[in-house]
């Protein structure tokens, strides 16, 4: 079914197509429309599921976990501060091995108060054990929700999965996309059959106290799940392409990398914008390629090592920052390359808090990276002045304003 819809409504339509049975959620801009649409579909009899309006994001995630453990296919959606608020339960979902999918509409964390796009919210959940996809198009939003359940419910994975989509750029933008019919999806993604579930007839506790004697093992088991996911992701994405004819990459997506001298590495819609950069710079005779990281967790270690062997330099775009260090993708990418490649890597920080990032800006920075003018870390669109900083001069200015 071809539709013209917002990214948020497409998430809801994908959730219905995936045969989701329980949706606990709490609204937060810019995610609210996901929940509105799901609630509307259920209330109108167009989706056979239980909608649980809860009193907070923390409870939303708790209900999500509980629903999943009773054997239901469960989904929720959140954003930014909502995700931060549920942080404790985000860890819990992975630790208890609940195969759920959650859409996170990527948004900056305040203060300064800001509802617009960057990746700080989900990057801050990096170490929780969730699988993380970052999508670059509306079509990929739909396909990733469906692929997501197939991946997370695989018995060798059993770790929750977060589908991250850029606020407004995807969430509130109308575009044309293909939503598969429920019947088509059912064959690819049959109803969830848990191998065990919580059942009051056979009471057990799950996720209870684990003593030091066994704790490391539970954590290592999560890492085994992440490692297994690399294989499962490739299989699921390949099968999905066979059934539905759509391919967005698996762990990563490459565009004109084979003969490239420099690779732009990016996640989310900045990768989509960078596709245009590649086309523009190739017309200038510059051999540029795009390497889009689709799965940030598990991190595409092998793919990046292969990239390191093929290109002469790498420009990593981060729409986040790890304070006291550098962009998170930059750190991770260098970690993967360590001991395998000495290719120079540069970091471009852009698009924080919804700052518009044009292909012209990325192209300009890429030209500078090629000519060696770009420093190790560049805040590409920041116009910082002393008045933005915590300085005595700034305080004096402020006092003058107060009179």
């Amino acid at each position, binding site marked *: 079914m071809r539709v*013209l819809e917002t990214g948020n409504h497409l998430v809801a339509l994908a959730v219905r197509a995936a045969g989701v049975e329980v949706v606990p959620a709490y609204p937060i801009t810019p995610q609210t429309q996901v929940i509105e649409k799901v609630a509307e579909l259920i209330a109108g009899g167009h989706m056979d599921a239980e909608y649980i309006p809860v009193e907070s994001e923390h409870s939303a995630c708790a209900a999500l976990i509980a629903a999943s453990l009773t054997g239901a296919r469960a989904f929720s959606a959140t954003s930014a501060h909502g995700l931060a608020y549920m942080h404790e339960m985000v860890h819990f979902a992975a630790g208890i091995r609940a195969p759920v999918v959650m859409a996170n509409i990527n948004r900056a964390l305040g203060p300064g108060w800001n509802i617009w796009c960057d990746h700080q919210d989900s990057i801050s959940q990096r170490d929780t054990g969730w699988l993380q996809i970052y999508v670059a198009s509306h079509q990929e939003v739909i396909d990733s929700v469906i692929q997501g359940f197939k991946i997370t419910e695989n018995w060798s994975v059993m770790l929750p999965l977060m589908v991250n989509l850029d606020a407004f750029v995807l969430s509130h933008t109308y*575009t044309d996309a293909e939503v598969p019919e429920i019947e088509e999806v059912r064959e690819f993604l049959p109803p969830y059959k848990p191998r065990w579930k919580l059942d009051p007839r056979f009471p057990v506790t799950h996720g209870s106290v684990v003593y030091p004697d066994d704790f490391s093992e539970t954590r290592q088991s999560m890492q085994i799940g992440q490692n297994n996911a690399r294989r499962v992701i490739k299989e699921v994405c390949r099968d999905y392409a066979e059934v539905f004819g759509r391919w967005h990459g698996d762990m990563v997506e490459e565009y004109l990398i084979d003969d490239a001298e420099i690779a732009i590495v990016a996640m989310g819609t*900045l990768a989509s914008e960078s596709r245009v950069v590649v086309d523009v710079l190739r017309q200038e005779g510059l051999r540029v390629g795009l390497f889009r990281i689709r799965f940030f967790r598990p991190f595409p270690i092998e793919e990046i090592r292969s990239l390191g062997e093929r290109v002469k330099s790498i420009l990593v775009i981060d729409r986040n920052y790890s304070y006291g260090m550098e962009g998170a993708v930059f750190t991770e990418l260098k970690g993967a390359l360590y001991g395998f490649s000495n290719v120079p890597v540069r970091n471009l920080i852009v698009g924080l808090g919804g700052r*518009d990032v044009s292909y012209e800006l990325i192209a300009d920075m890429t030209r500078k990276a090629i000519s060696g003018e770009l420093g190790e870390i560049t805040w590409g669109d920041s116009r910082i002045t002393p008045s933005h900083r915590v300085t005595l001069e700034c305080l004096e200015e402020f006092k003058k304003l107060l009179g």
Partner: protein
Amino acid sequence: MFQVRAHGLGGQGVVTLVTWAAEAAYRVGKHVQAFPFFSAERRGAPVKAYLRMDDKPISLRSQIKKPDILLVISSSVVGLALDEGMGENTKILINADLELAQKLAEHLVRDVCYLDATTIALENGLEVDGMPMVNVPLLGALVSFAKIAPFEVVMDVLDMPARGGNYRSFKNAAKAGYFSVRCTGTEEIAVSEG
């Protein structure tokens, strides 16, 4: 690729207008992208919205600085609209009468195309809470001026919203918009056939 940037005021239906235009293009087989710049939304505050149309899937996601058409829905945001950027070949389409359009054309030293959508909306009784529904005639104007689709497609798009009101008013206003865009520097009507 064809790009439009629209400027207006909260309550004028700017975002709805751009979404309708996207639907018109979608109905004739184009790939489309329609998005507002969201801020603290309130009635009367400046609003901007963007529209991209192409025969192939669209990779660009950034805001539009050099649109093919700059659509100005309220004369009070002309300054904001111009500050946001234009290309050499950007065509200006403004909700204004001839007098205002001529003033703007003289100021900018370029032709300005115009439609008095406010008058058309009021003449057809299209009002919501005292605000003229300028987006109905302007949808007609944009779809014809940007050569998106024939007039019938405009009415297909307006079918659902028009059912909630007076269908004849919607149709007359959209038709007036579609067929009466004029430009300074010429006596001709920009589009005379659907």
